[in-house]
């Protein structure tokens, strides 16, 4: 009787769980309804051996430099990174030339004076503002985030940044916007303090690529992905090799294991079968008084 009650209780609990889980899941999809699908892009750096499009990275740097860097810093990048493997791979001279366009306060020198000099490869990227507070006050109270790891700090990553750059549109009728606030359908809350940054032809590409809005957004997003993960290509390359190695090793270990486990001294369960068989035979013999050998 108690058994049956317990089984009934168990079935009831399973039913409760099932209903609960389904409600929870349907509920969560309901709350996600307001969200807008990001624009999906075929990024060249995705996939098992994905690499950056070198030209896109170089163009992306130009877009950053000419459009974004007025407000956004990338404080963790150094100019030397621009010429390093797996990045935009500017030549060393090109990278040096880029660095020299910017100044830095260095010192103190032997006289104890601070002095300004042009930047070198080993210097970090120049920041548009001396500190967070200055950046915030200059931008109407909204700090333009540092772009070093921006792609990793946003849900949706590259797709989100790309979508956001292309997501500016007229607010729906009756939507109130304060001065200096813009409508972007991909921004959480749809309100953004950055004005639309990219327009067709914002940057003049020297390699003949059409500077459409989409192209600009794609290039600068690629650049930001690299800025956030400068060793992405190295990671993919090593990952591929590690997988090859592991699969070969796995095969060898599997075969060795099969070999070890097929040793005769391990097959005791077959012995055990024999034993049971023997036991029954013995019992039969006792019962019969017959010779077990003839009994089969």
């Amino acid at each position, binding site marked *: 009787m108690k058994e049956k009650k317990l089984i009934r209780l168990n079935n009831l609990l399973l039913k409760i769980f099932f209903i609960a889980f389904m409600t929870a899941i349907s509920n969560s999809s309901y709350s996600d309804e307001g969200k807008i699908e990001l624009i999906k892009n075929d990024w060249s750096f995705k996939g098992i051996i994905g690499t950056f499009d070198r030209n896109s990275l170089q163009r992306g740097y130009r877009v950053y430099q000419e459009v974004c860097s007025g407000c956004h810093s990338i404080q963790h990048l150094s100019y030397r990174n621009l010429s390093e493997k797996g990045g935009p791979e500017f030549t060393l001279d090109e990278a040096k030339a880029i660095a020299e366009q910017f100044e830095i306060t260095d010192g103190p020198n032997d006289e104890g004076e601070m002095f300004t000099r042009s930047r070198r490869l080993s210097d970090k990227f120049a920041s548009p503002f001396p500190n967070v507070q200055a950046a915030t006050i200059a931008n109407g109270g909204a700090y333009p985030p540092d772009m070093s790891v921006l792609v990793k700090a946003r849900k949706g990553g590259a797709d989100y940044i790309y979508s956001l750059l292309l997501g500016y549109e007229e607010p729906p009728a009756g939507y109130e916007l304060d001065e200096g606030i813009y409508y972007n359908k991909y921004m959480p809350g749809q309100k953004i303090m950055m004005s639309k940054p990219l327009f067709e032809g914002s940057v003049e590409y020297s390699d003949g690529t059409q500077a459409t809005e989409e192209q600009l957004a794609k290039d600068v997003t690629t650049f930001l992905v690299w800025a*956030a993960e400068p060793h992405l290509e190295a990671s993919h390359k090593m990952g591929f090799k590690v997988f090859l190695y592991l699969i070969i090793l796995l095969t060898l270990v599997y075969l060795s294991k099969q070999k070890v486990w097929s040793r005769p001294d391990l097959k005791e369960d077959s012995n055990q079968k024999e034993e049971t*068989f023997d036991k029954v035979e013995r019992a039969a013999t006792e019962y019969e008084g017959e010779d077990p050998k003839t009994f089969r």
Partner: protein
Amino acid sequence: MSEDKYVPESKLAQWFDSRLPLLTLSHHLRGYPTPKNLNYWWTFGGILTFFLIVQIVTGIILAMHYVAHVDLAFNSIEHIMRNVNYGWLIRYVHANGSSMFFLAVYIHIFRGLYYGSHKPPREMIWITGLIIYLLMMATAFMGYTLPWGQMSFWAATVVSNLFGAIPLIGENITAWLWGGYSLDNPTLNRFYSLHYLFPFLIFALVILHIWALHVPGNNNPIGIDVKKNSKETMSFHPYMVMKDLLAMLVFILIFFGFVFYAPNFLGHPDNYIPANPLVTPEHIVPEWYLLPFYAILRAIPSKLGGVIFMFASIFILILLPWLDSSKVRSAAFRPLYKKFYWVLVAMVILLGYLGAKPPEGIYVILARIATTYYFIHFLIILPVLGRYEKTDPLPTSIFDPVLDEPNIVDKFKKTAGEYEGEKVDTFK
């Protein structure tokens, strides 16, 4: 095998071993008798040992470059990611290694629950294991604080604030834990210090855990006692070593899938934003492996109650060997327990899911149901089941179930009967 007195071959080895019996220890470990019917769920002990070593080695290297200061911690991590040779690899191995460590430990614990590995005479293995698990959670929590990102800061704030729920002395305790009146540099420094210390405590406890294991020997999927050094056991090396290695490689393959191709999948994007005490993230969530406890914490309406239930949910496991009164170990022979076991698994997963959701509406109600069930399972169902459950007959040997299909004795009886022309029942 391991019972006989071991004497090394060479004179030098004998001299050494009679003074420091490391060779005898190694001989014992290699010859340690393991039941032949252990399945792949038994390979996670080895996998866990592997990950403990991975975490310690990568952690020590990271510590050479990390700076435990509120103004420098975030930047020092970026320095590791960008400028330290293979720093990105070491950090991603360490970060994803902790997730894999917890995945393996959960499988390990639930395997124990299914096959009754916590029951006599293995209570001390179970309890040392739980202490390891507690230390792991403390270590992981403090490690998550070190990057000093938004989630680091706010998760640490939420957790350390919990102690403020203790009546009268709560505020003093939080201030003592923080080393000040808010989560700040002293807190980060002590978390770093303890994060470095705890893995070595875990390592010492792992030795005790294995030592306690080697007294009664492994449990097994059938759950009956096996005779050591009989046909039912085989030596640890090479049989279990090969099996462990194979399972470990499969697990490592998954692990490296995360490390190289989705290193931030298990993390939270907000932790790439430097900590800002003035800006609270929209949802504060812990790492995935702590979510079930987070759900229990928030399911209880009062703060103090939540804290008590959260800690009780872990400490209740320590009493498990005495709460689970059934003499039968393996769920294979406990038809009812088997069902309740899967309900528990489902509830814990549900709690984990709810821990990631905002504490409002249906989520709170579900979390309360699941929390209640969690405690009912351990406090009521298990003691009652042990008394009333009708268990299936236990085999006398771990090989019996193999013989069951179709029962060889019956088969023999039948043929014998046919041969004799006699009635089968009288034949015995």
